[in-house]
């Protein structure tokens, strides 16, 4: 990110933002918890960049809700008072993709590409919570093409596939693993048909679902795909010629050597 | 006070035509203003009409010609109303006759100009399914039978001028402004058809074989671009399976209009039966939410469509349409809500029965007339129950679909036209006696 002129500051003392599992249990509780994180950013006077779609969805929804709905805002602030915090609504919540597309801009990204990913067939998985939450039904919402555009900017070829706009299945983990796996399986099968070099996600959760998921599916459903899964940021760093070392690469359950080789 | 024993009718679709005839036959001098080159409106675009299955233009044409020949009707086509002053019984109206660049009195409608014109433009009358030249007659039965040069697309090559044996083409023609004095005004400007680009999951504009019902009507029509043969836009193949989708953009709080357009279920059943008649071995499906075949004879007709013609009715609004990139066939994902099974269906052609919406310029015209429109842009009656065709301005009445979905179908429009004519006659006669 710094190479693209974006300075990132780690938010100290944040908690989890409250993914849908949390939202499901208690409305105000969720609002208050997420609002607390927003307050920290407000204190820092910085917009929030969320890498994870769930964090983004949660924070964005809460931010919008509390900005527009005074009654709820007062209720939440009343709760926040126990930790001497107060929601003001002074910061914006952005997803990494928003920052890349809107703040950095595709042109700048194109310029920064050191090693164009020519000939790389990439399938994209944007992740539902970046494009579909209710409050995004205004024009502020991004479309499924957002990631394709970015991938293209890196010189790779975005590949269309069936069920592209369908969920990765992640949210059903620990609730109905069987269903969760079947969903991923469906998508992976579609990816196979489209014979892609890799699938790139904008959401760490989709990333895990596909990456870890492929192992589970291999063992439980006896289906083997071997489709490398990358988060877009990884692909970006490849293209910008930033060497990924140590921990990042080890994270991949499905080897991405094929990609590394192809790009070398 | 002095009352003008004359009336202005704006819009020459079936409603405007009927209103004009009723007024003119009543002995009232009537100016019929139509903004497009020919009268006839939407009904002229349709193929056949339920329940007689008369071809629409065939029963409309005599009325169009009656208007044209009627001593009490002054036909002002390709003209627009610019200003209206005065009050009931005594309105002053400024109308502008747009230049056709063809002299109406000289043109014999032979069409030689069009044969020679090098420019091809998608034909609005065919909802873009067919093409016309830059000098054109919108459709064969057009009234008046005078060609029009569309200067937006014209290359000014002058070919038409040189080939016209009647010396009718005049590219220097200027707009003409007329001042009319009328006792009453009837607004009958009709409707536009909703283009469902915003409902992305149906892929309208993206998938070749997804079309609107109005486009289908043009394909079915004998005088349409395919001469009445139904062909898939992608490959010209005759579709063996067709799906009609109801409530596309109507009954829709988010992408279109919340109201029910009132006619889609009925014409869908009619078109479905026509399809079956064209090709008895074809599979025809109608996807509906509530099958609104109200009105005289329609329920019975729908029953026949199911029993005798084997049209399949499925209570569902499909979630999405997908296109096979090779074959261009379409797959609908839907839930049959009556058996509660989620499944998919492959068809050759999908027809979207889209909402009817106000004319793009309806609000503008309303301003000129000084009358109110609702939040969509339709006219609002002063008293929707007691005086259904009156506007807030005495002496100005409405009829046809410009009154919004209050109107159902053609008979409704014809009745409203009669009612509108009656209201105007009431004003004029009451004051002149």
């Amino acid at each position, binding site marked *: 990110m710094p190479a693209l002129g974006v300075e990132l500051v780690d938010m100290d003392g944040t908690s989890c933002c409250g993914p849908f599992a949390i939202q499901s249990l208690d409305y105000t509780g969720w609002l208050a918890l997420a609002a607390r994180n927003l307050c920290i950013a407000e204190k820092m006077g910085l917009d929030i960049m969320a890498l994870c779609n769930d964090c983004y969805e949660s924070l964005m929804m809460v931010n919008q809700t509390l900005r527009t709905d005074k009654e709820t805002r007062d209720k939440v602030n009343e709760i926040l008072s126990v930790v001497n915090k107060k929601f003001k609504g002074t910061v914006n919540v952005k997803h990494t993709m928003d920052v890349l597309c809107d703040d950095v801009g595709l042109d700048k990204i194109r310029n920064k590409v050191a090693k164009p990913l020519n000939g790389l067939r990439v399938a994209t998985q944007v992740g539902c919570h970046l494009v579909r939450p209710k409050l995004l039904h205004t024009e502020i919402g991004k479309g499924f093409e957002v990631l394709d555009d970015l991938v293209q900017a890196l010189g790779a070829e975005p590949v269309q596939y069936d069920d592209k706009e369908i969920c990765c299945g992640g949210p059903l983990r620990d609730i109905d693993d069987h269903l969760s796996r079947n969903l991923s399986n469906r998508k992976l099968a579609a990816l196979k048909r489209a014979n892609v070099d890799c699938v790139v996600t904008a959401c760490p959760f989709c990333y895990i679902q596909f990456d870890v998921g492929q192992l589970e599916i291999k063992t439980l459903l006896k289906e083997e795909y071997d489709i490398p899964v990358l988060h877009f940021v990884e692909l970006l760093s490849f293209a910008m010629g930033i060497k990924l070392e140590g921990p990042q690469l080890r994270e991949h359950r499905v080897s991405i050597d094929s990609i590394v080789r192809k790009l070398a | 006070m002095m009352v003008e024993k004359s009336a202005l009718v704006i819009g020459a679709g079936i409603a405007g035509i009927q209103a004009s005839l009723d007024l003119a*036959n*009543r002995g009232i001098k009537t100016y019929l203003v139509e903004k497009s080159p020919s009268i006839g409106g939407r009904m002229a675009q349709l193929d056949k*009409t339920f*329940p*007689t299955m008369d*071809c629409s233009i*065939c*029963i409309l*044409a*005599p*009325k169009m*010609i009656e208007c*044209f020949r009627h001593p009490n009707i002054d036909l002002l086509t390709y003209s627009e109303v610019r200003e209206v002053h005065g009050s009931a019984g005594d309105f002053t109206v400024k109308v502008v006759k747009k230049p056709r660049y063809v002299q109406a009195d000289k043109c014999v409608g032979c069409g030689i100009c069009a044969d020679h014109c090098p420019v091809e433009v998608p034909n609005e009358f065919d909802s873009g399914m067919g093409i016309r030249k830059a000098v054109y007659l919108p459709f*064969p*039965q057009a*009234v*008046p*039978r005078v060609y029009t040069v569309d200067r937006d697309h014209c290359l000014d090559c002058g070919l038409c001028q040189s080939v016209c044996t009647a010396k009718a083409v005049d590219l220097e023609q200027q707009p003409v402004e007329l001042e009319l004095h009328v006792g009453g005004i009837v607004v009958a400007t009709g409707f536009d058809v909703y283009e469902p680009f915003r409902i992305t999951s149906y892929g309208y504009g993206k998938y070749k074989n997804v079309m609107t019902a109005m486009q289908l009507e043009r394909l079915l029509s*004998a005088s349409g671009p395919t001469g*009445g043969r139904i062909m898939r836009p992608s490959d010209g193949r005759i579709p063996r399976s067709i799906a009609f989708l109801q409530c596309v953009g109507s009954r829709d709080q988010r992408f279109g209009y*919340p*109201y*029910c357009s*009132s006619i889609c279920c009925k014409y869908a059943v009619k078109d479905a039966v026509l399809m079956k008649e064209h090709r008895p071995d074809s599979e025809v499906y109608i996807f509906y939410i509530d099958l*609104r*075949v*109200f*009105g*005289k*004879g*329609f*329920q*019975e007709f729908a*029953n026949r469509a*199911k*029993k005798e013609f084997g049209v399949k009715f499925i209570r569902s609004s499909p979630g999405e349409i997908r296109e096979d990139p090779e074959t261009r066939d379409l797959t609908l994902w839907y839930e049959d809500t*009556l*058996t*509660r099974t989620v499944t998919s269906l492959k068809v050759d052609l999908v027809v979207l029965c889209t909402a009817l919406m106000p004319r793009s310029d309806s609000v503008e015209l309303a301003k000129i007339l000084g009358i109110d429109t609702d939040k969509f842009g339709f006219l609002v009656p002063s008293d*929707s*129950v*007691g*005086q*259904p*065709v009156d506007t807030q301005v005495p002496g100005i009445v409405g009829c046809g679909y410009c009154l919004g*979905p*209050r109107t159902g179908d053609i*008979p*409704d429009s*014809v*009745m*409203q036209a*009669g*009612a509108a*004519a*009656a209201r105007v*006659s*009431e004003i004029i*006669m*009451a004051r002149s006696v």
Partner: protein
Amino acid sequence: MCHCGINIGGVVNVPEVVEYAKTLPNVVWTEGNLYTCSEAGLSSIRDSIKKHGLNRVIVASCTPRTHEPLFRATCEEAGLNKYLFEMANIREQCSWVHSHEPEEATAKAKGIVRMAVARARWLEPQDEPEVDVSDSAMVIGGGVSGLTAAVTLANQGFKVHLVEKEPQLGGITRRLGKIYPTLQDSSEIIDPLIKTTTSNENIQVYTSATLKDVSGYVGNFKVTLKKGTEDMKLDVGTIVLASGALNYEPPKGSFQYGVLGGVVTQLQLEEMLARGEVAEPERVLMIQCVGSRTGEVWTYELSDMSQSFAARLLSKILGVKKEEGWPYCSKICCMNAIKNAIRIKELWPKAHVDILFSDLRTYKEYEDFYRKARALEVKFIRYIREIPPEITEAPNKKLNVTAYDTLAGVETEFLCDLVVLSTPLCPSKEDVMLARMLKVPLGPDGFFMEAHPKLRPVDCQSDGIFIAGTACGPKDIPESIISAKAAAARASILMANRKLRTEALTADVNTDLCIGCGLCEELCPYGAHKIQNGKSTTIAALCRGCGVCAADCPRHAITMRHYSDRQILAQVEAMMA
């Protein structure tokens, strides 16, 4: 010769028929048009009449019903008597019915043209008798439609006689408490209308009066009214038929109507609410389409239904008895039910209202009305006709309703205080009598039939009679008012012109042959024949040209103008040739 786009040209080989026609005797000019009814086609008729001095014109195209007047007028413009025009229908009677046999169709088209030519030879010019039109009208029915029609005509200076069989005006509208979608009192609509009617000096109101007899013809109807014991005679130029419709009464026992208390129709509910006879209910259940949309087959697989229902369904099928009621959709019941549901919700917010429907037809902007009801927590449950809800008696005056919700696929039970049946508007028994008296046809649905369902929705087939409101099918109040005004508009045209030409197609008696036997006078359904000093005479304006007299005259003394034996026999011979 008309191609009518591909309607004819797509099947019949028109050019071939054109060539064939050229070969027929006496034919001097032949041409084909894409659309003969287009201005181009017509002008070419006018031109060729002048150019070739034609004295007969034949158009082979569609049906005379829609197009003959147009072509006749075109001939007249060119100075040719319109009865010298002949039309050959090669669309309805040829291309449409033989769309799959082009050769045979072409051959038949030739035959039809040949016949037309044969008849045309014998056509003679005719004059049309002109009749005076009285400028007074009779309106039958004092409901919202009748009143509106009367006022609309009176405002234009015509004299109107308004006939109502009930003692007071207002019709069914008066019985409604509120009206949708405005939820205003029906009196707000009907009272002012009654007031303007009764106070208008152009309108003469006859209440508790019925029609005894109607004779005469357009422009000169002779009406006999019966009010109490006395008869009254009226002469009117036009008649507006606004006799309205009835609210269908379900047969005893259907949905327990008339068996269990608490089962009522929507109209009864309205009257009960108006009279304040409804105690706060816990739950009211409404059932749509009771007595309407009968004979529908929207069957589902038994597998779709729970066993108990399969059983119930089977018992229904085994004990099949014809569904009572009407096949059409009454159109207004959905809004009406919602209206009453909203009223109940407004009166008693705690009360539950459930509406069992099979298609919710809140057309037009009434969709908002439906939305409003949902927002008020009125519940809409879709049932299917094959499994009608079952109603049984429950303790303390309550009713137990078992209904199958197809959308959830479950059987649900409702314990209600009231079960309200949404029954359709239906034609009244008197309509049959009226129809006979006025010589206007009834449609298959039992309502009065319009001249053309699309383009002449308020005209009757018999001239001078117009239909307004629910007499020709279910309508709500605004629609009734619109149709009434439209009917008035059509009637006013006739009366304003004061004169009318009628068809020349009438009986012509050859007094030399007539023996005055009086058979024609006896047979004529229109009373057009009178025996005067030993010979039959025809009252042209009454004669409809049916030809009964000509067919039966023992001395062949009667010929029908424009349909002489000679003309018809010539056609028959041409056909055989």
